[in-house]
């Protein structure tokens, strides 16, 4: 057999323990087959719950937290790993097949130095002597672009950054010179400008060592950069399998087509008007710290339009939302809203101020009280601001549910009975119930699967058209920004580095940071990564 890895009709199940119900078995992976040649990269892509990580771990004969392989075969180098017993698995894991986890920060043992951990499997499997293993680790550190590769291994995990840890984990996986590496969402937790470097480092390392890889991610644009083949999964079943090029340029299945064309919403920019919200010269810091999280930030937002505030973690974009809502009074600056100046602190604001300025959160899960029904959650603002009760309130709640395209039968349900997208819709309805002039949307689509997120964005745009409500849209995702913004503020380290109408902000000439940010967003085309890196190299040579 020439294939390195072959899965035949793989079935994986788990036992679930729902409340007030007898425990029962569910099937996570429902008979998936595929093969991977030596030195090739297969991308596994799908939404949460598609079973992609589970399949990746199954290639090492491992089931995470009560998950069990219930049927099928997993062949590696001509052996069925499921029949080798514990001893066979141990010989396989960390030697022939290695693993790179999503959160390297959690996957490294905090009590031991990086070098010990990176060389551990190499030494334990007796692949070479300690000095040889350490030399190889240093070489890998250098190849992966880690600073001071000679001494990097002497540090403890908490002493290096997240992006560096992710590279160190890749080094750990490559050190024993395995035949196959399983990359489980290795860049998902990273900022987009860090992601591109780690992605490039991983890609180089794969190419130079000639190792085969399973690359698992939910981001088709990312997987297109590193894979030879792509397998699209949904609900534990294979949807489509093909070369990366075929999947990206000529998808056969509707589901794949939808994934490829995600975020391609056509949204013409509106002309600026007299602003409904003006934040002027805002400077803010958290109590007990000596560091300004926001430095002299000024933005304005026209009625019925969307201002996207975009930036990476630590840029201060969410803090700006907290300042505008009054949760964090600024140390300097003023906020004008609907023709009046808002009190800096929440306690000083009138009920009318609060009503006209609503907020939607990233995690719809924790934004709704799990002990309240949808009817109570949406009905409370009606009761609180407009004094509605009884049938009138219930009718209005139903009307709002219709507006968010959920219709009948949801009013008496609890949040736990809704899907992720439905939960976010209910949160939107709760904000709408107050009949606001402005809604602050804090990363409202980041926790959702791409297609669900698309639905939410379209709904928000549709509601904006009908209700003339303005959105302050906070996000790290530039594709989302392109899809919905009228104007954009780019934030970096607490400052607004670029601000204006969408057409201007997204058109050259760029400042350095915006250029870096924009060029780092993976695009749905093959060879994008190489193009960007080549372009950057040229520019830095030109300087």
């Amino acid at each position, binding site marked *: 057999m020439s294939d390195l890895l072959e899965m035949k009709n793989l079935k994986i199940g788990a036992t679930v323990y729902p409340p007030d119900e007898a425990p029962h078995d569910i099937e996570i992976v429902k008979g998936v087959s595929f093969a991977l040649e030596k030195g090739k990269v297969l991308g596994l892509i799908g939404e949460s719950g598609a079973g992609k990580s589970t399949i990746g771990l199954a290639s090492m004969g491992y089931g995470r937290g009560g998950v069990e392989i219930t049927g099928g075969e997993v062949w590696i180098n001509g052996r069925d790993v499921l029949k080798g017993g514990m001893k066979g698995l141990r010989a396989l894991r960390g030697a022939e097949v*290695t693993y790179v986890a999503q959160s390297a920060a959690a*996957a490294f043992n905090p*009590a031991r130095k990086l070098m010990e951990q990176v060389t*551990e499997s190499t030494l334990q499997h007796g692949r070479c002597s300690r000095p040889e293993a350490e030399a190889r680790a240093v070489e890998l550190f250098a190849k992966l672009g880690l600073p001071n590769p000679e001494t990097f291994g002497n540090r403890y995990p908490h*002493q290096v950054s997240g992006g560096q840890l992710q590279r160190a984990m890749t080094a750990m996986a490559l050190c024993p010179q395995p035949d196959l590496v399983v990359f489980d969402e290795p860049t998902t937790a990273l900022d987009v400008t860090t992601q591109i470097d780690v992605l490039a480092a991983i890609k180089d390392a794969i190419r130079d060592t000639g190792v085969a890889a399973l690359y698992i991610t939910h981001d088709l644009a990312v997987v297109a950069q590193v894979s030879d083949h792509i397998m699209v999964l949904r609900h534990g079943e294979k949807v489509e399998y093909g070369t990366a090029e075929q999947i990206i340029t000529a998808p056969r299945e509707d589901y794949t087509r939808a994934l490829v064309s995600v975020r391609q919403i056509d949204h013409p920019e509106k002309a600026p008007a007299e602003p409904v919200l003006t934040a002027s010269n805002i400077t803010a810091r958290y109590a007990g710290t000596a560091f300004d999280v926001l430095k002299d930030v000024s933005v304005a937002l026209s009625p019925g339009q969307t201002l996207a505030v975009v930036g990476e973690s630590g840029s201060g974009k969410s803090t700006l939302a907290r300042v505008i809502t009054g949760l964090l009074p600024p140390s300097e600056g003023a906020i004008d809203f609907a023709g009046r100046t808002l009190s800096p602190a929440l306690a000083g604001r009138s009920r009318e101020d609060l009503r006209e300025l609503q907020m939607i959160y990233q995690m719809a899960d924790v934004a709704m009280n799990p002990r309240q029904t949808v009817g109570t959650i949406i009905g409370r603002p009606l009761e609180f601001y407009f004094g509605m009760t009884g049938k009138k309130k219930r009718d209005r709640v139903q009307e709002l549910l219709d507006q968010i395209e959920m219709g009948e039968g949801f009013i008496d349900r609890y949040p736990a009975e809704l899907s992720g997208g439905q939960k976010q819709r209910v949160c939107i309805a709760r904000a709408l119930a107050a009949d606001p002039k402005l809604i602050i949307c804090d990363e409202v689509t980041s926790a959702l699967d791409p297609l669900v997120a698309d639905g939410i964005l379209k709904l928000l745009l549709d509601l904006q058209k009908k209700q003339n409500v303005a959105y302050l849209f906070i996000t790290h995702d530039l594709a989302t920004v392109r899809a919905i913004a009228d104007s954009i503020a780019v934030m970096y380290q607490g400052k607004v580095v670029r601000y204006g109408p969408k057409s201007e902000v997204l058109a050259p000439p760029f400042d350095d940071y915006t250029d870096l940010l924009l060029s780092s967003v993976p695009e749905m085309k093959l060879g994008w990564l190489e193009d960007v890196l080549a372009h950057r190299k040229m520019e830095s040579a030109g300087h």
Partner: protein
Amino acid sequence: MSPIVTLLAQRISLGLLLLFLVSILIFVGTIILPGDVAQSILGQSATPEALANLRRDLGLNDPPLTRYIDWATGVLHGDLGTALTSGQDIAESLGSRFRNTLFLAFWAAIIAVPLAVFLGLLAVRYRDRWPDKLISAVTLASISLPEFLIGYLLMFFLGVKLRLFPSTAIGYRADADVFTRLEAIALPVAVLTLVVLAHMMRMTRAAILNVMQSAYIETAELKGLTTFRVIWKHAFPNSIAPIVNVVMLNLAYLVVGVVVVEVVFVYPGMGQYLVDHVSKRDVPVVQACGLIFAAVYIGLNMLADVISILANPRLRHPK
């Protein structure tokens, strides 16, 4: 100064501050509350003159602050005052009893700690299988009974019915040889061990399980390491702090258990001394014993914190 030294200094001074505040609390608790020491000693039928005389002799007419300062300076110099009922020097009577109590607690700890850690590991190793279930059933039973009843159960079955050990520690002499002394305290030690063991084991089990569920243990397993190496190199270094914490907290719990067990087995320790004098309403003795018990308790808790600070890699190797 390195952050770890600062943190340790902070923790230790906090312990001392706590001890100071506790001394105030104990003093205030016995002085301000409506009960009257003089009345308690002389009983309801005492004449007003006798009461007034006793109050004066005891210094009860001085302002509370003066009395606290007198008492506290005395304590700092090793003078715990005089017992009202016997007129004896408290520090003197306490000396030998404190040693006896330490002797008892020491042996209970020596047996309970390794046993608890071992059984905790066993419960984790055979999680949800019969050894784990048996251990948790026995644990549940033993924390569902007060210490004194466990004491009498052992006394009845092991001491009286089976005659394996002396039923009481009444014959305990501090000057006897070690084996005689150990035989005398066999049952009290068994009771204390049982009581402390249950809590310690449960908490050890939880602490290790918590570590075993970390992502880095999964990483280690996916490296194809042996179970032994996963536990020894990856779980153990991260379990030291929580386990030591558990042990210390439970040794503090021993402080309470010892009081009751001493009464049950008529053991001449500090606990029995305290309970005796609470019934006699001998306030200076109660204050002294209360302060010592609290100091031991605070000291052990402080030690637990200090050890977990020292074991934290983030603090040991700052950025």
